[in-house]
């Protein structure tokens, strides 16, 4: 038995691999969860629905609504059975690892639709278009916050301060837009404010080697205190002067805005929302197709390796952290200048943390994070929407509000697969 055949051939055959497709434990867990959820759906939403139909309101264009009517209990029950079937298949055979994600997503969609059928079965109409519209609007700050977080974390700096960056951006946006009577100036100020907070994070994390999680928490406190202080001292007593910036008005896009259903949801918003779409694409391309993106990812995985090929590790981390802060600041601008129209104390109320959850939920990939943010935005919209609908049983809105956090908890606990951050995330680089 000689080994000196073709060196390449020899080397590529690594070792004998004993093949478990997906870990048995995970397969069983996912499968059982699907089965249980499906059964619950059949019982609660299918059987528990009021007799009658569920009416879903959609909009072809802004003023020609049309409704889709389905038998409520039947539809919900069928969807529940579909989920049960998926769960059984997962338990018995198991989907290949790649497909599991899509299967779970599909099951989730089915469950949600079943839920909506049930909620609408008591007679009210569920305005799908409105729901989706609100989802997008709720999701925008989360998407932006998540993008900011990703820029930072992919280069290896943990960013728990997204909340503080957002808050600072919201604050600066309102203040400067009011003083300058110009929304554009406000946006610029917000971006700079976010960047400044990002720079603070960068300096202390990269130069002074402070633990990045603690740093994030402290920076959040600092931002809260500073913005609260100036709000009390300046903005509240002199609201006309310092806290009435106004809001960007909606700008429907000519052709795209007229597409049935999709149009009103996506293309009849204000310019900040459109900027968000662009930003999602830009970040994706930048991270995976440009030189800067390659180097950023290298620095986040193995900074020493990057250093030895001449890449300036600390500088890249610094720039990325500041950029991340800028994007998070922009998220804050959306809150004040794109939605509410004025600043309020602690107005971000945890959105920064949901954005962080979206980053983790999405496994540090821009698309994953955006997807997670959309999901969370949908949950938020659902929560508001449900208070309008007369569901057969009134669900306390507080439980729905818990949903994003519970979901993230499940993901982090590995029910959606092991979560893997960039290898050097959180480790300061010391030569």
């Amino acid at each position: 038995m000689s080994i000196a055949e073709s060196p390449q051939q020899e080397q590529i055959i690594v070792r004998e691999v004993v093949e478990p497709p997906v870990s048995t434990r995970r397969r069983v867990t996912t499968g059982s969860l699907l089965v249980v959820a499906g059964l619950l759906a059949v019982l609660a939403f299918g059987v528990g629905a009021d007799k009658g139909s569920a009416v879903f309101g959609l909009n072809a264009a802004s003023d020609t609504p049309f409704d889709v009517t389905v038998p409520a209990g039947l539809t919900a029950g069928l969807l529940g059975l579909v989920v049960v079937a998926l769960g059984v298949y997962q338990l018995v055979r198991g989907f290949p690892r790649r497909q599991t994600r899509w299967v779970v997503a599909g099951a989730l969609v089915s469950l949600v639709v079943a839920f909506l059928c049930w909620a609408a079965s008591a007679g009210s109409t569920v305005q799908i278009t409105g729901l989706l519209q609100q989802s997008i609007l709720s999701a925008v700050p989360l998407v932006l916050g998540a993008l900011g977080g990703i820029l930072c974390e992919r280069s290896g700096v943990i960013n728990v301060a997204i909340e503080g960056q957002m808050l600072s951006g919201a604050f600066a946006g309102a203040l400067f837009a009011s003083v300058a009577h110009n929304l554009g100036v406000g946006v610029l100020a917000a971006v700079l404010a976010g960047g400044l907070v990002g720079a603070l994070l960068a300096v202390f994390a990269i130069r002074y080697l402070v633990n990045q999680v603690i740093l994030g928490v402290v920076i959040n406190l600092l931002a809260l205190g500073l913005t609260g202080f100036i709000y009390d001292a300046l903005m509240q007593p002199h609201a006309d002067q310092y806290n009435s910036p106004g809001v960007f008005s909606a700008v429907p896009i000519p052709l795209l805005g007229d597409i049935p259903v999709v149009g009103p949801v996506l293309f009849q918003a204000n310019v900040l929302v459109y900027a968000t779409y662009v930003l999602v694409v830009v970040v994706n391309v930048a991270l995976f197709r440009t030189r800067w993106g390659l180097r950023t990812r290298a620095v986040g995985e193995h900074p020493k390796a990057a250093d030895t090929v001449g890449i300036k590790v600390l500088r890249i981390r610094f720039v990325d952290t500041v950029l991340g802060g800028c994007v998070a600041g922009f998220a804050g601008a959306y809150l004040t200048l794109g939605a509410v129209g004025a600043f309020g104390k602690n107005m971000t109320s945890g959105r920064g943390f949901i954005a962080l959850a979206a980053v983790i939920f999405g496994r540090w990939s821009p698309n994953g994070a955006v997807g997670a943010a959309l999901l969370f935005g949908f949950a938020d919209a659902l929560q508001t929407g449900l208070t309008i609908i007369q569901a057969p049983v009134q669900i306390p809105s507080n439980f729905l509000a818990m949903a994003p956090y519970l979901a993230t908890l499940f993901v982090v606990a590995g029910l959606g697969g092991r979560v893997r951050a960039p290898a050097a995330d959180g480790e300061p680089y010391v030569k």
Partner: protein
Amino acid sequence: MKLELRGITKRFGSLVANHGIDLVVEPGEVHCLLGENGAGKSTLMNVLYGLYQPDEGEILVDGRAVHFDGPGDALAAGIGMVHQHFMLIPVFTVTENVVLGHEEVAGGLLDRRRARDQVVEVSRRYRLDVPPDALVGDLPVGVQQRVEILKALARDAKVLILDEPTAVLTPQEVDELLDIVRRLRDGGTGVLFISHKLREVKALADRITVLRRGKIVGTASPDASAAELAALMVGRQVKLEVDKGVARPGEPVLQVEDLRVLDPSGTVLVDDVSLSVRAGEIYAIAGVQGNGQTELTEALVGLVRPDSGRIVLDGKDITRSDTDDVLGAGVGYVPEDRMHDGLVGPFSVAENLVLDLYDQPPYGRGLTLNMGAVQRNATERVAEFDVRTSGVDAAASTLSGGNQQKVVLARELSRPLRLLVVAQPTRGLDVGSMEFVHRRIVRERDRGTAVVLVSTELDEVIGLADRIAVMYRGRIIDELPGGASPEDIGLLMAGQSLESAPAASTSAGTTSATSTPTGTSAGNVPTGEAS
């Protein structure tokens, strides 16, 4: 390109890592830098590569003085470095790793096609086969090293520095590497080859410079004898033997039957291994790093769950026991990475000495710690093992490597043992500490303890072992008696069985033609080879 170092001095606080080093690498020659662990080789290379700034001295390229602010400058000057611990990003492809730092850009975006073509071209030119689209993390170590070398060559390196490149290679892979280096040299590249392995240095070098304690202590030609070179490296006539009496083995203490350990993705790391170790003998497991020895020892002490098979200690099945229970059953464990797994750096020496016994009398009763007992124990052990420290309350991280290892050893040997498992016990130690550790291991054997020694250093294995097993790709390929020759062991380490090999042994010493162990032997060590 001619590379010259003149009077390079580098200090870290009060420690002088490099003192007035003069070195020249001519184009088309292999200049080997020889030195023990801790002699200052890596520091010198880091200075050369721009990672450190020298305190004194200068670097000259083709006669002109240059200053490197960072690796980028060194790269631009034509110096390429192949690091001991690969500087590769496991989640990137081979192509991405090779072009990182000098990527081709088309219209603002990465030009993937050009990059791939470049990698294929360079790979062909130097005959270094690599799969351009594979993820580096999936590749075996030998191929990873090729990628590392390609990285440097793709940047038109005129001088290539290789830092301990053979540490993780099988003898077969080492030969291939030496061929590659020779080809590069013949092509005009200057090579600076750093190693502490005499055999390779003698096989490859055109010139040899020996470094010791930060200074150049001599130059030699490859004709110098191994003993001469070793003497220069270490500073005195080194006896390459261990004083060891005859073993008197008793009953089997440890039985391992068909042990199988898998990694999380299903790869087999320990492949149906069976072995038996008797009281009063040293059973050595030799093999190149990464062939399953680490996982085997971890399974023995309960740090890793085996997939199937049995581990029996004194008749008791400990296959699925927790580490706590295994240690409590009379097993001592000296892990291979003492700072990572053996000691808690911020803890004091005293606390480290009771790391496994803190919750048992006299050190701990129920919830309470008996600080006095801990201190007393520490004072006794430090004296017994001659641990050089500023006090038993000093943090373990302030001790030198040798003293740290003594603390670990002291802890494990301070309770009655049936089995002692030591992994790489003298890695990174100076010669004096090495001798101390070897002596204590032999002493433990003579007290009737069964000893399992895992080591990648052939001299250590040959010097200490009563029986030698060689692991390759997760299996024990063969077992040899303690007096086996390095050539035989080396062949086994490369996966070749002894029967099929042509007359392999050329030096004196016993050669075993069969695969079954033939009992113990006296500690006879052939002194010709030094690595």
